């Protein structure tokens, strides 16, 4: 639209933020402020980027609703990269609606992808999927297709669907190469590593070995009795017993499955499932009650037989019992799982993502810090937590594209 803005936007799209800055560094009109904001974000100066985008949104006239909405979307993406999960999602939804209404479908999709990525991050894959489904299915520019592929893969990975995840990532790879945005290509490549990293442990007949995502998926069609600690179910092919609200029963089932075909003593069951150090008579009575309940729940899948020392699992219609467990099972595994994205997190963002109180998260972080599993920098509200850096972690920054074409 304006000559220098067009030139700067083209530089930005070609992955040359410095070239874009050179052209608009001294200008303070609304489109220049917005371009400088995005260039700064690409250069990693998020604080300055946020300030610039906010002043750009103010500087655009009241009639320039689309331009303002684009600034909001860019700011939301920066918030996501900074794991600022308290950033107002309603503002983003409103901006998405404005873009959709004015026919800027590419940026509306971008806004939707940011919403979906946030939902994925806070462990709500179903809502993330619904958000994707709401977006217009018209052809998206390659960069948006790549991001969509990443979100779809993220949802599939959380559902342990390796085939779907691989297909989505293959699509994302092609789109990212077509878009020629190096940060995007790197993001997709590192997402692919997840498929080649053990996602679970398989425990069978007293021994265990790591499993890739694809191997977990194949387990779904194995004929074995599977105690699945990801979904808190016991299943054999299509027959499923769900233990979502019965953690004690599930713990008993797991203890029996891990030991199978051997028996498990009453003492071991009591200490493992009730967290009691010493088994007294009241514990034994409770164990009898709980085993009775477990028998009822497991009826179509297995029997639980009493032995002299304790109990043993007797699976029906199969000769195999497997336990599917998380790769790391320690006290604060969920905190570590979020920090594993390599990004600095605030304790309040972790609390939002885990749906727990800031105080609980803080206690977990302090404990993990004492064993050097996490580290922090900054003080007060600016304090951020990371796992000690591992080479090759993604930056998470996907700011790109058609944000400022007019």
């Amino acid at each position, binding site marked *: *639209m*304006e*000559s*220098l*803005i*067009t*030139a700067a936007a*083209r530089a930005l799209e070609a992955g040359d933020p410095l070239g874009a800055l050179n*052209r608009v560094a001294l*200008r303070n*009109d*609304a*489109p220049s402020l917005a371009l400088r904001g995005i260039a700064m974000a690409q250069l990693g100066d998020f604080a300055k980027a946020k300030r610039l985008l906010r002043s750009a949104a103010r500087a655009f*006239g009241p*009639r*320039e*609703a*689309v331009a303002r909405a684009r600034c909001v979307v860019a700011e939301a993406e920066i918030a996501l990269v900074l794991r600022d999960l308290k950033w107002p999602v309603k503002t983003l939804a409103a901006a998405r609606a404005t873009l959709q209404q*004015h*026919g800027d479908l590419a940026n509306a999709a971008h806004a939707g992808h940011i919403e979906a990525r946030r939902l994925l991050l806070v462990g709500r894959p179903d809502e993330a999927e619904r958000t994707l489904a709401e977006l217009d299915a018209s052809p998206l520019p390659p960069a948006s297709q790549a991001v969509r592929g990443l979100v779809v893969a993220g949802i599939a990975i959380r559902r342990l669907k390796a085939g779907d995840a691989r297909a989505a990532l293959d699509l994302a790879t092609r789109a990212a190469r077509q878009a020629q945005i190096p940060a995007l290509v790197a993001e997709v490549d590192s997402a692919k590593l997840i498929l080649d990293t053990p996602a679970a442990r398989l425990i069978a007949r007293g021994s265990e070995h790591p499993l890739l995502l694809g191997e977990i998926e194949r387990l779904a069609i194995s004929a074995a009795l599977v105690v699945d600690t990801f979904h808190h179910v016991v299943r054999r092919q299509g027959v499923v017993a769900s233990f979502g609200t019965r953690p004690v029963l599930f713990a008993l089932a797991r203890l029996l499955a891990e030991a199978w075909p051997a028996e498990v003593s009453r003492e071991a069951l009591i200490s493992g499932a009730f967290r009691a150090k010493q088994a007294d008579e009241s514990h034994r009575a409770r164990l009898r009650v709980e085993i009775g309940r477990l028998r009822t729940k497991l009826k179509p899948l297995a029997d639980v037989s009493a032995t002299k020392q304790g109990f043993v699992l007797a699976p029906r219609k199969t000769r195999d019992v497997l336990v599917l467990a998380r790769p790391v099972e320690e006290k604060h595994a969920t905190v570590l799982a979020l920090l594993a994205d390599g990004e600095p997190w605030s304790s309040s963002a972790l609390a939002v993502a885990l749906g727990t109180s800031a105080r609980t998260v803080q206690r977990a972080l302090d404990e993990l810090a004492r064993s050097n599993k996490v580290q922090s920098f900054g003080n007060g509200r600016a304090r951020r937590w990371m796992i000690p850096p591992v080479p090759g972690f993604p930056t998470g920054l996907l700011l790109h594209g*058609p944000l400022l*074409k*007019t």
Partner: protein
Amino acid sequence: MKRSAAEIVREYGPYPGVDAVHGVTYDGTHVWFASGDRLSAVDPASGKVARSIDVAAHAGTAFDGRHLFQIAEDRIQKIDAATGKVLGTIPAPGGGGDSGLAWAEGSLWVGQYRERKIHQVDPATGKVLRSIECKRFVTGVTWVDGELWHGTWEGEESDIRRIDPDNGKVLEQIDLPAGTMVTGLESDGADRFFCGGGERGNMRAVRRPRRA
């Protein structure tokens, strides 16, 4: 002021590899459009691209009978239409905030988008001879039969308007359908305007209202 709805006679494109049309001109045979790093000449009858020139092309385009003028960043390039060679440059009056470009009466006329202005510029030196205040953001600019017309895009709405070159008063307005953008404007000297379609990467021919 006369006001009417635009009658879109024909659509051209979108053209492959063109993510936006920034400027439009007409050399009597071909319609030229600017798309970032290229000028392309389209046969208005077939809609096909006949030839193209690789040159920085970020905003308005004009033709003086022999040369193409093309805004790139904060300057106006003078291009030999036959060879595609850049013969020289002059500074653009808006310092990079420039949008539309037209040639008429020995002068260049340059739209300055957000400043809502049209400048008359000496094509030899780039000196601003005078400036016309407009009411809306200025996109394309063109002269035809002694009439000064310019495109607008503001508040997600576009129109093509004829203004009084002395005081900027709007004399006539042709409204484009909502969401349809005019990013470059040129008359074919008769009853058509060629308009750039911005991000859609296309062009449109719009009928020029008949004189009573």
